[in-house]
């Protein structure tokens, strides 16, 4: 340990500071997915330690944030598997919202309102504030819907695994994800794209 060079120590301290500055954001994401403060803190701590233990692995990665987020996702998946029983999805959470889908369409199957054109994804995805709004919209989803949606779209788990973990049928899962997307769309339309 004592043969560390001054440069190496400086780099390590710098890395440590950068990681600390990311901690609040990482915690928000971990909590959004795990909905358990202890588990979220553990996952973030494990991810940060993993980076600090092997700082060399980061060399050549596109950005520290990308790298840490990638590691955090793996740690979250570990915790999800451990918390398995607690997540067992109660699909009735969103059942009062069956109308969510039906209300969008007339009896003949046409849309009631014309969905708005959101423009070029590239220009939207360049804007940091867009992701803050998206985060708030995710927080506003019913809790379990948010977790399932994030397992699929953020952690990118395949549907088979999600169904197995949560005891859902695939068609059930597709509907939960469809509803989550409809809610997020409404939230983004209202709060980012400035429509309605």
């Amino acid at each position, binding site marked *: 340990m004592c043969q560390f060079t001054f440069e190496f120590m400086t780099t390590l301290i710098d890395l440590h500071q950068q990681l600390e500055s990311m901690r609040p954001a990482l915690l928000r994401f971990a909590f959004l997915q795990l909905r358990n403060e202890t588990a979220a803190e553990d996952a973030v701590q494990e991810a940060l330690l993993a980076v600090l233990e092997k700082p060399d692995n980061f060399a050549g990665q596109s950005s520290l944030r990308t790298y840490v*987020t990638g590691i955090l996702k793996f740690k979250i998946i570990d915790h999800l598997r451990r918390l398995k029983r607690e997540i067992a999805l109660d699909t009735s959470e969103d059942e009062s919202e069956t109308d969510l889908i039906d209300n969008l369409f007339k009896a003949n199957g046409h849309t009631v309102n014309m969905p*708005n054109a959101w423009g070029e994804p590239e220009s939207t995805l360049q804007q940091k504030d867009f992701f803050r709004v998206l985060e708030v919209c995710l927080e506003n989803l019913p809790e379990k819907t948010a977790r399932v949606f994030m397992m699929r779209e953020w952690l990118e788990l395949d549907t088979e695994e999600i169904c197995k973990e949560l005891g859902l049928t695939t068609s059930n*899962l597709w509907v939960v*994800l469809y509803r989550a997307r409809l809610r997020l769309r409404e939230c983004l339309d209202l709060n980012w794209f400035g429509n309605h």
Partner: protein
Amino acid sequence: MRFFLYSCKQAHRIVSEGLDRPLSVSERARLKIHLSICDACTNFNGQMQLLHKAMHTLSVDIDPGTVSTSKNK
């Protein structure tokens, strides 16, 4: 023809499911035909694709200027 064409209600659902499972050849063909004549579902499809890309990008790299969407395949 009617049984072959999707309604907007069906097309919306298929757009969403297309993000979670591979669509069959017939589903893809029917969706493509529907989208080619329906602005409402075309816009909806654009919204869903943007949301999908955004979730992939979320926190992975949110600093302006460093977001590269071209690599998100």
